[in-house]
């Protein structure tokens, strides 16, 4: 066999030494980590940008409206010309109403679907159903909003005669459908990571599959399931388009779900699509509402993080 020889006969060692000694290469090796670190800092800067933007504009808002009125006022009437009222509680309550209904829909269904996928379904069924859940999770929220307004609300009106066109029930149910895939797939991940030996032990003692699922797998996967629920709640709180289209624009401080409501996110949308000028109290109010919203979701995300760190069972 004839081997091709390089023009100059150099050993590999010499080739490496030659290549190492190039100055440009050394510079690249030094600069790249720094450049990459700078790109990593952009994500940190984004967080700082969000926090500072919200804080500065909210402070501006509080020079016009008292903090006490904002935090404890039960009337949100920014557009009333004579005496505008800025009490955030009705907006928070609107958000919580929708979130509560969404959780009622999504948590039982999501966990049940997760149990089915992880404990009962065959490999083939699972491979068939999981992509559908992914598709459901990828549908834009504007589509869900349109669906809530033009399909779910009319159907619900047939069942509940007193239901208004804009209400908390319909967007609540649809937000529930939106967060269902998230709960199902994260909970399923948590359940699948429970070792099979535990299931087999219980089965060998004569348990049925249901007993294994409820008494062995659920408790073992509880931290993951709880974390998925908390993350889903955070998503529901920040959901915007569904509640803007189907929830209405009347902030109310009551527990009625059949009447028009307004959530924090829907208020920001209402002002953004309206013609409130830059620098007006109404303009700054969207930042104070956004800041409140941000704090709510931040709290939820930290809670989810804490749950999955603190209560994780290691096998």
């Amino acid at each position, binding site marked *: 066999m004839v081997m091709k020889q390089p023009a100059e006969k150099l050993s590999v060692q010499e080739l490496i030494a030659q290549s190492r000694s190039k100055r440009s290469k050394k510079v690249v090796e030094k600069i790249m*980590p720094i450049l990459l670190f700078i790109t990593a800092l952009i994500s940190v800067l984004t967080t700082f940008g969000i926090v500072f933007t919200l804080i500065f504009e909210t402070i501006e808002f509080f020079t016009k409206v008292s903090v006490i009125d904002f935090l404890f006022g039960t009337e949100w009437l920014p557009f009333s010309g004579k005496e505008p009222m800025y009490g955030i509680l009705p907006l928070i309550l609107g958000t919580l109403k929708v979130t509560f209904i969404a959780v009622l829909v999504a948590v039982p269904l999501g966990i049940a679907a997760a149990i089915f996928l992880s*404990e009962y379904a065959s490999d083939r069924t699972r491979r068939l159903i999981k992509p559908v859940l992914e598709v*459901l999770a990828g*549908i834009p929220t504007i589509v869900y909003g349109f669906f809530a307004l*033009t399909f779910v609300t009319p159907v619900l009106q047939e069942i509940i005669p007193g239901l208004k066109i804009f209400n908390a029930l319909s967007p609540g149910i649809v937000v529930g459908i939106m967060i269902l895939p998230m709960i199902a797939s994260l909970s399923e991940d948590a359940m699948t990571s429970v070792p099979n030996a535990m299931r087999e032990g219980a089965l060998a003692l004569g348990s049925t599959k249901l007993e294994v699922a409820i008494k062995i797998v659920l408790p073992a996967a509880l931290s993951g399931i709880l974390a998925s629920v908390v993350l889903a709640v955070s998503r529901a709180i920040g959901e915007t388009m569904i509640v*803007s289209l189907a929830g209405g624009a009347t902030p109310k401080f009551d527990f009625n779900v059949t009447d028009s409501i307004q959530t924090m996110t829907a208020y920001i949308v209402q002002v953004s699509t309206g013609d409130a000028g830059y620098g007006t109290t109404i303009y700054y109010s*969207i930042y104070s509402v956004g800041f409140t919203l941000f704090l709510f979701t931040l709290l939820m995300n930290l809670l989810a993080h804490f749950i999955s760190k603190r209560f994780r069972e290691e096998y």
Partner: protein
Amino acid sequence: MVKYVDHVQVVKRMNGRLVVNKMFKIVFLLATLFALAALGVLVYRMFDQGWGYLSADFITNFASRFPEKAGIKAALIGSMWLMVVVAPISLLLGVGTAIYLEEYAKQNRLNDFIRMNISNLAGVPSIVFGLLGLTIFVRSLALGKSVLAAGLTMSLLILPVIIVAAQEAIRAVPKELREASYGMGATKWQTILKVVLPSAVPGILTGSILALSRAVGETAPLVVLGIPVIVHFLPNGILSEFTALPMQIFDWAKRPQEEFQYVAAAGILVLMTFLVILNSIAVFIRNKFQNRY
């Protein structure tokens, strides 16, 4: 026989337990089917309402006050412009961050903070990103309601998703490949550029395209930025004003006339087709180029 287990009692209760097991299996199955049914009804509704309004004119017309003349041209082209801005920015930042975290970052407080920060950023509602974009890009940097301002906002929004996808793809490259590269005398950056990244590209692309499709469907930040809806021109650059598919659908869905509901459904069909194409590309890349070690 064990003394304390009453065999007769066990057999008697077994049937009941098995029936309960069967019943709950059906309950769990129904819960799963509910999600599938919801998707089915949703897709059927959109076709049922929108199909009649979907035509060549609908794609090539600008928005209009009259439902029968309304078209989606400006929004469709606008969404493509948005992608042209979002894709390179978010990929560059996302992959750069992922390489730093996976290949260079040491285990210290600062890097832990960066990681923690990324996971928190992923949980920030999209409308809050809109407020950030409004203050920083639209007003402070005076970019106006341009493709660039919206593109930068959307890039930051999907950045965490791309970082996580790229991190997973980079982590999946086996250690042996890197070691072989170092063994041949390659430097760290050479190894990353010529060994790690090429193997990770399919995973990175799949995750990034999925993230990009999220940016295409996202409405809330655009609403807050004040992106206009009645646009009768096409953008001629990244500093030009524009509108996007979800904004246009939002505007139609809000209108009281019933015909506009059908126009909105037709718009949703266009948007969903756009997303299906993007997702198919992602799935194709995943199946075709995925390396298995």
